């Protein structure tokens, strides 16, 4: 994961700005079955702006995933807020990454380090996707983002 100094590709992301964790929690309360839950997660993923091709390179690639996943991050010097952008070729992984972006984007490194992602995924009944043994790289991704935030403290 590299730090990328192009603020616009991060701030254009509605996740964490127009859609918040509170919105996701509210929506989940009204979703009755797996079809609706995963439909919603997939729709969240579709809101993520496309990652410019130049960033889909080896150093941003998450290894050990069943799907292809890249991610980059940005620390806004003026506001001190962090942003993450994730791209995956699998819809559900992209949707779950969108939940992660909602939690982290526009937050201070302090807030990111202190955020309990396990608790959020457990509350949304999505914890199976965040387990370290799951081959989607989400767990490793969350840890790397929190490590980057820690080094920005």
């Amino acid at each position, binding site marked *: 994961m590299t730090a990328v100094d192009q603020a616009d590709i991060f701030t254009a992301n509605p996740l964490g700005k127009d859609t918040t964790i509170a919105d996701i929690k509210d929506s989940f309360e009204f979703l009755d079955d*797996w079809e609706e839950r995963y*439909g919603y997660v997939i729709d969240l993923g579709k809101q993520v702006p496309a990652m410019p091709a130049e960033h889909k390179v080896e150093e941003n690639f998450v290894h050990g995933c069943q*799907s292809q996943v890249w991610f980059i991050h940005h620390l806004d010097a003026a506001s001190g807020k962090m942003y993450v952008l994730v791209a995956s*070729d699998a819809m*559900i*992984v992209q949707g779950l990454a969108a939940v992660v972006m909602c939690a982290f984007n526009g937050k201070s490194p302090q807030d990111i380090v202190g955020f309990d992602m396990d608790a959020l995924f457990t509350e949304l009944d999505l914890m199976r996707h965040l387990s370290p043994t799951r081959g989607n790289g989400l767990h490793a991704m969350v840890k790397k983002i929190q490590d980057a935030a820690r080094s920005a403290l």
Partner: protein
Amino acid sequence: MTQAIKRPFDVLSVREDFPILQQQVNGKPLVYMDNAATAQKPLAVIEAMNTYYREFNANVHRGAHSLSDRATGEFEAARDKVRAFVNAPSREDIIWVRGVTEAINLVAQSYARSTLQPGDEIIVSQLEHHANIVPWQIVAQQTGAQVRVIPITPDAELDMAAYQALLNEKTRIVAVNHASNAMGTVNPVKEMIRLAKSVGAVTLIDGAQGAPHLEIDVQDLDCDFYAISAHKAFGPTGIGALYGRKALLEAMPPYQSGGEMIERVSFSGTTFNVPPFKFEAGTPAIAEAIGFAAALDYLNQFDKAQLKAHEDSLLQLAAELAPTVPGLRPVGTAKNKVSVFSFLVDGLHPSDLGTLLDQQGIAVRTGHHCAQPLMDCLGVPGTTRASFAFYNTREEVEKLFAALQKITRLFI
């Protein structure tokens, strides 16, 4: 030998032998279609292992007491059952290993490392599992040998003309699978072994997918090594067997060292035990060997041709139902296959498909199936793979396709 009367195959009665199949997953009856990764275990296997631990757990070949005698007897009887299963000439030709992966590493590090010279060639195929690629790459690096690869046709069959062209006087080893884990292709191993012998090459057959589906006769095949894993053939994990031709096993140096594999140890020099014990350092997986034997007994109740006919009918049904799912493309359409149905659906990543099938209680494998060179060659990042065992039903195959139809309707 008298032919015992076989138990007639009836899928519903067979399913009752497998406790794990009687459950719900995500609120739906479990449809287990990841058999090529690992097969489920009949109660007879679970009980055999349980009985060993409850009644006669003891170390083998060592103790001067009754429990050890009984454990040793059952453990060696299990070796006899594996010998019969692959029709090896004698029980000493069967080496216990953890599974096919360890068997191939054993042959690579013992046989190949001690015999290969710079410029020698090892032939594998594009259809191999990583376990039948990486050990050869490592020993090639160690010895200066080269790994050559048999290409495949668009149907994921081995290109036999290319194989013949690869064979030459430098070919020392040919290592291919009996059946492909990712595609199900059954390879013409008997003919391949005959051709390999014509240039004096030694042959190893990866039987991980052969053991659960195909008749194995190492004498008829005339192979030098044949490797199987118990867990893919309804036995426990952590145990498998390597058949080796006696003359080769006798000449090969030990693989791992320690107890059991020695004849006499002194600080002035150690002499090694004879095969198979030369290759079985340390306390073996005793309960697992006993469980493996129970799995073979279980399989031997049936006429294997009946099990295969049922599995073939499931594969045939899957092929018939494939056009009912928009955008579904079968991958690996060889004429001769074991019951593996690998496929892609346009617009849906295999990892998405796996998650959405799991929500409907259907267990499949997604991804590269430990066969990345094969996926690269086919130009796909991976596939979704439904692999059937004899305990799967036609209704389950229909459920798989109904689930796929629902997914394409809702999510594309």
